[in-house]
């Protein structure tokens, strides 16, 4: 049997309580258990990094932000455009979708060195990696979304003698928006992952590079601060996507 929903005050208070209890346990119980600070620094130690080294953190946030955003835009745009081509040409879809599928099975960590070999050590390979990681879910979702109008809806447009272009703009595209936004939500997190993976492999700046440097130098508090920052970046991008989705889809 389904449980009754929680009262609204509790629905807000309980997650706050959950997060606070974990932070308190982290702050007091882990040191008490003897977990050393170089493995798990306390939350106050991590927040100390934000006070002391804010300039360093921000200077590494910018490259990752730019790479993730550019990769997000390029990867999703490519996914959407290719989906449009595929739904309008079953022949091209039959010929090339399996190739794209194969391409997607290559682990991004295996693909990244090749991308860096091709594009060098600048921002471009990180943007490409972020774009590649965003591309496939959007392509698949967009193909399904553009094909999701019902037979009756297509017949309605046919009765009205709509052109292919009108069917695309007034039916297929609006029908695809919910599925597009589902993949954009996923891509908002994976774009950041792509940028960071690219920075791990070949970069001296960005949150990925900071994570690697902090790990090798046993600067655990800095490592955790970089993790918090990259997670915040994903959450910010996710929130923007959700806001755009609420404006675009009112039903």
């Amino acid at each position, binding site marked *: 049997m389904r449980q009754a929903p929680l009262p609204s005050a509790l629905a807000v208070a309980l997650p706050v309580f959950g997060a606070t209890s974990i932070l308190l346990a982290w702050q007091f119980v882990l040191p008490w258990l003897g977990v050393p600070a170089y493995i798990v620094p306390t939350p106050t130690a991590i927040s100390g990094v934000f006070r002391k080294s804010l300039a360093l953190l921000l200077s590494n946030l910018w490259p990752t932000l730019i790479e993730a955003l550019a990769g997000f835009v390029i990867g999703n745009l490519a996914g959407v455009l290719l989906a449009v081509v595929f739904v309008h040409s079953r022949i091209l879809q039959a010929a090339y979708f399996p190739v794209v599928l194969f391409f997607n099975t290559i682990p991004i960590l295996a693909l990244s060195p090749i991308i860096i070999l091709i594009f060098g050590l600048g921002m471009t390979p990180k943007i490409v990696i972020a774009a590649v990681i965003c591309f496939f879910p959007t392509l698949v979702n967009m193909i399904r979304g553009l094909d999701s109008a*019902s037979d*009756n*809806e297509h*017949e*309605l*447009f*046919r*009765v*009205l*003698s*709509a*052109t292919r272009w*009108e*069917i695309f703009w*007034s*039916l297929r595209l*609006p029908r695809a*928006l919910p599925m597009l936004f589902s993949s954009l939500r996923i891509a908002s997190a994976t774009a950041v992952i792509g940028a960071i993976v690219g920075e791990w492999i070949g970069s001296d700046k960005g949150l990925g590079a900071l994570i690697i440097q902090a790990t090798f130098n046993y600067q655990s508090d800095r490592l955790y601060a970089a993790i918090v920052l990259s997670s915040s970046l994903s959450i910010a991008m996710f929130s923007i996507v959700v806001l755009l989705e609420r404006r675009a*889809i*009112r*039903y």
Partner: protein
Amino acid sequence: MANAIETRRLDVGYGGRQTAVKVLTGLDLSVAAGSFLSILGPSGCGKSTLLRVVADLLDPLGGSISVLGDTPHAVRSRRDVGFVFQDSTLLPWRTVRDNVRLPLNVGQGRLTRTIDDRTDELLDLMGLAGFGERLPHQLSGGQRQRVAIARALLGQPRLLLMDEPFGALDEITRDRLNDELLSLWRRTGATILFVTHSIAEAAYLGERVIVLAANPGRLARDLDMRPFKQAGNRCSREDPAIVAAMAELRGALEQAS
């Protein structure tokens, strides 16, 4: 009176001409202009398929069909045909007003006549004044079908094709919409082809009811309802004459199934 629809030995099916599965075979049917024809029949008898051929959504395999004295394609191109589906087929992202206006937004380049924006008039006519800015999910099932009918009427079509439009509605709403549809028909003078599974609905609405048989689809019974009704296709649902006509239709439907 001239005929709105004329079919001769009409064969309709799905698939290629050689391998097609025939849904309707050898259908000879004449429908007078301005009349109200109800179409009854078991599932798979080709009721909806017949509407699709008339609306130029499907090409016949053989025989001939003339709609309003022309080809189905020409009639569709001048927007002389309106189609109402069982599910209202409203676009959920468009407001009620924008759904009704859809025929003004698409297909204009191919239209062979101009159509006027009668959105407000139609919203009034269908009892939807004040609902124009709502989204479809904010409406009841009956209201959604009213919007679908208003959209179908926007181009002032001379032919209205309705494919079980009230099939998913509760009985009270369905009865109310039946009455509204009849008054709309009297007012517009359009020819209506109305597909339904309900014997009572077919008998109440139609000036004439045809029963199609399945496997393959063919005309099984053609009943003129005018002798059972008062002038102007008026009757009450409990009228003994109508009840008798319904019994006759039930018998034909049982034989056709």
